[in-house]
């Protein structure tokens, strides 16, 4: 109790004397930046997913080939989630009035929906007055039918006409332009009819043998944390044949975009953690040096080692808790400001900030403080009391190897925790470790080189001797400075490049319509029509449907896949194609491209992601069942595919000379102008080639682009925090040796050095220090940028020479400026005062 009170008093005295400013600033910044990123990422991730869910009409879709048990909906309602049922089946649809001739019956995808459909997004109806369509209110009523524009065109039906569906007769009251469930509908061949769920029994279509898909849409409209527990519950309850899908499972491009968005935000948080750790380590070691005398006096006055330790630990504990709490408060304010700045995100309802980021930011602060402050504290308590008589006693080392390992362990832990991605964490930890090792080697080389260098002029000699004098401290300082500079470079230049490359991978002229189901004899005609409307040559790719039946001679058992996505992919028919050349949006990941080889001997090229999901590897022999004919070939290469390029891409590609004779259709992608014109064009194409489908993916693209833009802006804001962190590290690294510099300067002045000489010596030292750190930082930033874009984001990397220029020049300049500012004041004081104060 006495110790606690005394510790608090000592803390308040230190606070008042300004001894704690750097440490508190470092801690607050650490917690605030991690907290802001955490809060924001948490909320934005939620918002981004919600936006993506507009494409699905729900947050999650449960489907099965048999009716779903009532408990699924009941449990969701009990947990406060919204649900609505839906039912999908195929049926012939035709105009009911006998007098209408010619159009005949069309096979349609009938979707019967409950009253609350859709839970996310809206149904858009064709509106003569508005090319973008009008939002529908509700769903088709009893006795009503809403065909989509494709079906309406095929049936030549308009509002007021009557359709017969099974035994029922339904009246067309609206034409659907766009439905939220585009996500799962891209390759649905048949046009669609929307009806009321209650009309289904009367159609008499749900006979045994007619395949229907029963669905339950679930959404968390008023988030209270009930959604994830429900999903967990559902996961346990799902029986064979029942599937749970979200938008990520259904759309690879949305999935990839969301994942990249999360990675970008996570990366910003990581850099913040890294910088905070370094700043705290530097501030704590400065605290150690400045409190050696206090510790020695305490021991001299009779405090036991344990007492001294507990006095310091309590002070740090209180400091850590207070600074972390303040940091969390700053983070809350920061993320709110951020949300306000990003008006487009706040337009969609953002979930409230959660408690988890607060706890993790707080925990990070405390963990960082003790990871980096505990070793110096233990060292402090072990200061020999004899120091009060002999100032020249060696300083205690903060715990040696164990202390550094503790710190390194804490950083690795935090990074792994923040990244929640072993690969990203590995790259970051590897980058930091490599940088520190490089700093050590460079410092050592420097010492060797400086000894051999002809010594020119007292100022350079003295300045460089300073670096040489403490090899370990110098290399640590270079390492810390390099880390700070590297973070800044990563965040400015490399981040900019990454974002630009990301945006560029989604060009504004990306195709917005897929043309599907073109028969071989229609290829020339469709291609000509596409060229006339879009103004450019459009490629059509052959597509063959086939099911994967054997792997290495064994029948494929889809039950082996625990992951529902993998199982669904394996159960589905694959879209197969062939190609002689590797397309621009594909990159070879491993193996060998066909390069002129043909036939089944040349093998198969698989998309890497699906190969991983299905646990297929290079060299596996696969057998596809294509319209009853087995085709067997070896996997000879794996490809990476840029899904968000919105070009037609295939999971499986054969070499030429295998599939050409199989029944096939063609597909392509084209950019059409937005609005009525393209709607008119689509209907004329469909009338000319009734089997051809033109699918509008403009909505998906707009969503993906919106996500990219929002993340770009979010990262830019978070960057401000990390920038502050980087500057703080620079400041702390320079402050770490400031006292020694001041003392040296005072001694030199008593020896008659002029202020100009002193300044020159300091500048010499800082310039060397800064440019070396900058060189390392540029190398580190380039390497990290390369690894990140190549291994993590899978965006093409382009090296930027500006990094080197900015790194070396900027490093020398900022370090010199900051160092000169820090020591300038001291040059004015009489030397004796400095010696007395610091000696």
């Amino acid at each position, binding site marked *: 109790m*006495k110790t606690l009170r*005394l510790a608090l*008093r000592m803390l308040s*005295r*230190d606070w*008042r*004397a300004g*001894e704690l400013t750097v440490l508190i600033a470092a801690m607050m910044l650490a917690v605030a930046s991690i907290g802001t990123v955490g809060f924001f990422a948490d909320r934005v991730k939620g918002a981004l997913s919600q936006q993506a869910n507009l494409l699905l009409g729900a947050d999650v879709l449960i489907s099965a080939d048999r009716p779903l048990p009532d408990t699924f909906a009941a449990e969701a309602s009990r947990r406060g989630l919204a649900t609505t049922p839906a039912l999908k089946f195929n049926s012939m649809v035709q105009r009911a009035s006998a007098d209408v001739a010619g159009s005949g019956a069309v096979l349609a995808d009938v979707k019967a929906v409950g009253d609350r459909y859709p839970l996310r997004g809206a149904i858009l109806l064709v509106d003569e007055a508005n090319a973008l369509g009008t939002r529908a209110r509700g769903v088709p009523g009893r006795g009503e039918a809403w065909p989509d524009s494709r079906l309406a065109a095929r049936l030549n039906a308009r509002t007021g006409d009557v359709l017969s569906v099974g035994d029922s007769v339904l009246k067309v009251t609206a034409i659907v332009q766009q439905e939220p469930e585009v996500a799962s509908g891209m390759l649905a061949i048949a046009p669609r009819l929307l009806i009321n769920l209650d009309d289904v029994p009367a159609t008499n279509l749900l006979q045994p043998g007619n395949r229907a898909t029963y669905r339950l849409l679930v959404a968390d409209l008023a988030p209270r944390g009930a959604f994830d527990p429900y999903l967990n519950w559902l996961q346990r309850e799902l029986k064979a044949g029942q599937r749970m899908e979200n938008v990520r499972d259904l759309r690879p491009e949305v999935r990839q975009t969301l994942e990249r968005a999360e990675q970008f935000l996570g990366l910003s948080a990581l850099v913040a953690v890294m910088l905070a750790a370094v700043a705290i380590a530097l501030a704590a070691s400065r605290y150690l040096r400045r409190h050696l*005398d*206090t510790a020695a*006096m*305490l*021991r*001299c*006055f*009779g*405090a*036991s*080692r*344990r*007492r001294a330790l507990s006095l310091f630990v309590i002070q740090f504990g209180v400091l850590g808790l207070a600074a972390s709490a303040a940091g969390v408060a700053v983070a809350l304010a920061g993320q709110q400001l951020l949300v306000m700045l990003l008006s487009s995100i706040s337009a969609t309802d953002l979930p409230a900030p959660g408690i988890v980021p607060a706890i993790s930011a707080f925990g990070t602060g405390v963990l960082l403080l003790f990871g980096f402050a505990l070793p110096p504290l233990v060292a402090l308590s072990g200061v*020999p*009391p*004899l120091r*009060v*008589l*002999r*100032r020249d006693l060696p300083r205690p080392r903060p715990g040696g190897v164990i202390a550094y390992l503790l710190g390194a362990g804490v950083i690795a832990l935090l990074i792994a925790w923040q990244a929640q991605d072993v690969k990203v964490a590995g790259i970051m930890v590897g980058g930091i470790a490599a940088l520190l090792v490089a700093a050590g080697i460079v410092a050592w080389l420097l010492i060797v080189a400086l000894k051999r260098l002809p010594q020119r002029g007292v100022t350079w000699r003295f300045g460089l001797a300073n670096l040489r004098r403490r090899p370990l401290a110098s290399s640590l300082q270079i390492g810390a400075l390099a880390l700070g500079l590297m973070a800044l470079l990563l965040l400015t230049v490399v981040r900019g490049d990454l974002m630009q490359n990301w945006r560029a991978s989604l060009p504004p002229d990306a195709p917005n319509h897929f043309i599907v189901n073109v028969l071989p004899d229609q290829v020339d005609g469709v291609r000509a029509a596409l060229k006339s409307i879009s103004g450019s040559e459009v490629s059509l790719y052959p597509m063959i449907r086939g099911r994967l039946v054997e792997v290495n001679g064994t029948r494929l058992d889809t039950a082996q896949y625990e992951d529902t996505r993998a199982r669904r992919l394996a159960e589905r028919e694959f879209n197969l194609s062939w190609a002689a050349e590797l397309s621009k949006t594909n990159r070879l990941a491993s193996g060998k491209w066909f390069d002129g080889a043909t036939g089944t001997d040349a093998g198969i090229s698989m998309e890497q992601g699906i190969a991983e999901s299905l646990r297929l590897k290079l060299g596996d022999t696969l057998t596809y069942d294509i319209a009853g004919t087995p085709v067997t070939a070896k996997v000879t290469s794996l490809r990476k595919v840029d899904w968000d390029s919105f070009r037609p891409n295939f999971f499986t590609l054969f070499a030429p000379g295998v599939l050409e004779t199989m029944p096939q259709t063609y597909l392509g992608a084209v950019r059409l102008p937005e609005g009525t014109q393209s709607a008119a064009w689509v209907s004329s194409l469909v009338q000319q080639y009734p089997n051809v489908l033109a699918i509008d993916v403009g909505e998906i693209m707009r969503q993906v682009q919106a996500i990219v833009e929002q993340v770009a802006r979010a990262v830019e804001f978070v960057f401000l925090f990390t920038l502050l962190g980087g500057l703080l590290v620079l400041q702390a690294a320079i402050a770490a040796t400031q006292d020694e510099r001041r003392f040296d300067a005072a001694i030199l002045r008593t020896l008659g050095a002029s202020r100009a000489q002193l300044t020159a010596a300091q500048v010499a030292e800082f310039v060397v220090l800064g440019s070396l750190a900058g060189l390392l930082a540029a190398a580190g930033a380039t390497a990290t940028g390369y690894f990140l874009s190549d291994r993590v984001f899978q965006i093409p990397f382009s090296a930027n020479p500006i990094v080197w220029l900015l790194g070396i020049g900027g490093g020398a300049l900022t370090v010199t400026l900051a160092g000169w500012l820090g020591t300038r004041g001291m040059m004015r004081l009489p030397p004796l*005062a400095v010696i*007395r*104060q610091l*000696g």
Partner: protein
Amino acid sequence: MPDCILRASRLTKIVTSGEAPLRILDDVGFDIDSGDTVAVVGASGSGKTTLLGLLAGLDRPSDGEVWLDGNALSGLDEDARAALRQRLLGFVFQSFQLLPALTALENVMLPLELAGAPDAAGNAREWLARVGLAKRTTHYPKQLSGGEQQRVAIARAFAGEPKLLMADEPTGNLDHSTGLEVVDLMFRLNREHGTTLLLVTHDGELAARCMRRLSLAAGRLVADERAAAQ
């Protein structure tokens, strides 16, 4: 016959620096009575400060023993020696050793607070008044002159009411007249409180004011003189 507060026996300190072991103290022994004033004198490098460190239990001898108020220091661990210092010793240093982040008052309070003494602030205030600094309690060390800083240090040393006050060149960093004032103060408090005073100094004038003078040369005790009481 007064008690023996401090006894040194065959104290030897050897440090190994460079190639040859260096004998800094060589077989030094003496007794100091309670209430005595003793000066340890000698040229620079004669081993004075080393001796002081050993006597205060701040360092361990290579050989020999120190008894502080009857306790053999070699039998005590670092923490037990610290506890003994807290109970018995006060220190005044050449470079004052005030903590720069603390005010004059807080510097004096610190050892009292460590010992858990009641009313540390009141006590410290009283001691500052006794050394003539009643008006400077809220000043920081860097706002005080050298003499004032040393007076704060003396107040700090006496505030714990130690039986034995050790001073290492207390006037070393002060000009002559300020040094005199500080010395006067120390001797006055010593008389008022019956504290034993052990000074390390090469200031002959200061040494002359002590009742006893121990002279060191090259690590050996070369003279032990008693002056006539003042």
